[in-house]
């Protein structure tokens, strides 16, 4: 009986996705109590910026997980695109620490080509999964190792220092008081939300995610959507890569190691189900923000990185357990 009450409560909470908003608000309160400056414009903007990078790949990841897939390769693609950007801006010179720029072609084109490359890698993921029918996990695991290796190989493992101003603007630029990255990110959120809620593409994507066979018999082509989502994921990874490189002012093959897991965690904390077909961008953003804020709080508390990780792990675990309460089958059904 007692358990049922819990279940019902849980169901209501989960249904309204309230628990997460609640958690977020509580976090904000705690934070602003701990650090008076927390809600200051300055800090909020910093937070926004720090969310954005993880945020980008989380958006891509959302698409993938909605289609009942998983993409382990995002972080590697991110690093790879950063390196490519660096190389394209130091074209011809002996790779490595040179401060003289030599663009292969104007920066905007470089951006486009990097984005294209990222998308292509994602596309390859989709192709491998659908055409060679390999499980998403394994296929993207392969791409993860491959792309990271590629990033190291083309840069010879070196850090490529100094990018041009446009690239820096992507990462560091401010529009008024607002970081440019944040603007980019928020607009990406808006666009993707619209795509998912108000276009046939979105609806069909959800359908394919939940039940590919049924989708197929209703005249939808699941293969197309599979490939599409991975391409999207690749695109956002590349975008994040460009911004990250701009922020660090270097192309670094070691960047963002393990971020794919953070992104997945964010998506799941947000309440998008591994089983596919359930969830959305907004939830994901929630997850990203929650994770980011917790990290920030821990830093503000002056907790050093290592214990931070530990606490982070615990908090995530609790968050997930709480999210799973009530729903009989659990919020993240076994795939």
């Amino acid at each position: 009986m007692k358990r049922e009450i819990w279940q019902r409560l849980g169901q209501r909470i989960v249904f309204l996705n309230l628990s997460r908003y609640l958690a977020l608000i509580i976090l904000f309160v705690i934070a602003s109590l701990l650090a008076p400056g927390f809600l200051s414009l300055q800090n909020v903007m910093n937070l926004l910026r720090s969310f954005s990078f993880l945020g980008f790949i989380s958006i891509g990841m959302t698409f993938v997980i909605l289609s009942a897939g998983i993409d382990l390769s995002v972080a590697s693609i991110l690093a790879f695109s950063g390196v490519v950007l660096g190389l394209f801006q130091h074209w011809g010179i002996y790779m490595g620490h040179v401060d003289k720029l030599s663009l292969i072609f104007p920066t905007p084109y470089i951006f486009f080509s990097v984005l294209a490359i990222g998308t292509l890698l994602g596309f390859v993921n989709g192709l491998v999964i659908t055409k060679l029918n390999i499980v998403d996990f394994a296929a993207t695991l392969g791409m993860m190792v491959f792309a990271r290796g590629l990033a190291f190989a083309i840069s010879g493992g070196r850090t490529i220092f100094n990018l041009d101003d446009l690239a820096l603007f992507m990462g560091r630029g401010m529009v008024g008081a607002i970081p440019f990255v944040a603007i980019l990110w928020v607009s990406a959120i808006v666009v993707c939300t619209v795509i998912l809620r108000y276009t046939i593409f979105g609806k069909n994507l959800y359908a394919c995610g939940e039940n590919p066979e049924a989708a197929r018999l209703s005249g939808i082509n699941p293969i197309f959507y599979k490939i599409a989502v991975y391409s999207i994921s690749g695109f956002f990874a590349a975008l994040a890569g460009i911004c990250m490189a701009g922020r660090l002012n270097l192309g670094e093959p070691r960047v963002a190691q393990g971020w794919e897991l953070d992104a997945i965690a964010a998506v799941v904390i947000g309440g998008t189900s591994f089983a596919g077909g359930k969830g959305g961008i907004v939830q994901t953003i929630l997850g990203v923000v929650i994770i980011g804020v917790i990290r920030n709080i821990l830093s503000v508390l002056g907790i050093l990185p290592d214990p931070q990780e530990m606490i982070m792990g615990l908090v995530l675990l609790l968050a997930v357990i709480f999210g799973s309460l009530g729903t009989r089958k659990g919020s993240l059904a076994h795939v």
Partner: protein
Amino acid sequence: MKKKLLLLIGVLLLAAALLGAQGKKILIGFSHVAMNCPYYLAMDKAAKETAAAKGAEIIVLNAEEDISKQIADIESLIVKGVKGLIVNSTTEYGTMPIIKKVKAMGIPVVAIDRPLYGDYLAYVGIDQWKAGELQGELFTKKLLPAGGNIVLIIGDPGCPASIGRGNGMISILDRPENKGKYKILGTYKASYNQMLGMQKMEEAIAAFGDKIDLVYCANDSMALGALAALQNAGMTNVLVAGIDGQKEAYAEILKGGQYKSTVINNPTEITQKAVSILVDYLTKKIQPKERNVITGTVLITADNVKKVYDPNSVF
């Protein structure tokens, strides 16, 4: 089928043997800790050049700061039949057992840049502790005579370089006359990498904000990263100090900005020494004069930076 296979193998082995016989060049191995900052790259370059000059063949393997990979590297170097080893050990003790094994096989080991625990032919590098002390002196005498809060960014815990450079500096702070004046706010680990240096500094800023008076990094790459982070946060009054004498660092010191000091630790020099010691020992049976070859450590500040700065140098 099987017969054919065996035959094939036999032939190949024979051919290989012949090839081996022709190659008179002596083969040495260099198990390098990582390639993630200019310092290591310079070492890599120097090693190859010196070896070539000395008429030796060298294989450089990069452990990516993973001790278990380094052990595996050393093992595969042995398989390739190197006659001597240069090791830049990831952690001070981690390579001890494998070094013991190598020694047992009669392969001499030269430790470079980072002292390691075990029976080695020679160690070539700076006196890490002294480098730390020099910086400590500078802080207490010049930069923060009145005392202050210091953020420490080291490479890897357990890396002898970090231990020496860190403890050396701390030992000065712990002197009776400085007791209580200085506080280490936190110690961050950035594995000698500029990007990580920047990210860790950002975390430190988030944690301690304006409390920070000075950032002391175990090498210049991380210091440069930290510098970038500080500049992004607009904290231009926080002082920065590094070690190694990377030319970008010189440039910063030259500007006379918040980047105050570094200590020369010339990768090219130590690598050249190490390689020649090993090759001489192997070819001409020359025992190194002293077991610990300590290269010069000079504190570089705005006063003497002009003398050493060379924009076109490798490092």
